[in-house]
């Protein structure tokens, strides 16, 4: 299991960053995401917006894989759940792969909040937990 965390500060208001995050794809910085579908979305009684999305990603594999499998491209799917609280000003996203789960598990969690020291900025905290089945990833 490998845990990776990072923090990033955006020089924009939380509302701007959240609106942009909702429209993150298509994204030239990450062209492997080729499709986004909203499977469910609702506002709960406390006013929070819950979204459940399916992301389709496509990867180009080395040519040796093409000669073995007949195709150099493979589509994988990721499910993403998000909760946006406009009163507390938090946006939390959790995503996990639903393809190749017998080989690798990638769980990612992102949180967007106004920066505690400067509310005109937004802080993004990211955490990814990667597990490869049967392989120890401890460093």
């Amino acid at each position: 299991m490998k845990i990776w965390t990072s923090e990033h500060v955006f020089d924009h208001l939380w509302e701007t960053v959240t609106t942009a995050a909702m429209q993150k794809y298509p994204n030239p910085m990450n062209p492997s995401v080729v499709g986004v579908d909203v499977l469910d979305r609702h506002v709960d009684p406390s006013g929070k917006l819950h979204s459940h999305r399916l992301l389709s990603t496509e990867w180009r594999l080395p040519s040796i894989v093409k000669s073995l499998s007949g195709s150099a491209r493979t589509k994988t799917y990721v499910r993403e759940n998000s909760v946006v609280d406009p009163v507390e000003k938090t946006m939390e996203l959790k995503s996990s792969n639903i393809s190749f789960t017998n080989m690798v598990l990638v769980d990612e969690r992102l949180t967007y909040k106004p920066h505690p020291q400067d509310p005109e900025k937004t802080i993004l905290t990211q955490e990814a937990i990667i597990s490869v089945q049967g392989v120890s990833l401890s460093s």
Partner: protein
Amino acid sequence: MNSVREACTDMKCEYHQCFNRWFAEKFLKETAPGPVQRSLQALLAVLSESSKEKRFLLKDWSSWVMAKKPENSS
């Protein structure tokens, strides 16, 4: 951005434009709980003070409220 089902791509585009507008112009601006939410929170607070048996019933009631809540445009 394509849909996982290509037949849905145009409808999806229309939905996303509608949602993005609602999200930025309405949803994010609702920073105070509305009258329905305030009323619900007050009621839930009173119910949660009751006995353990009633707290168990409270969980079912919350599910009922979520099912009955009118669809918000999105």
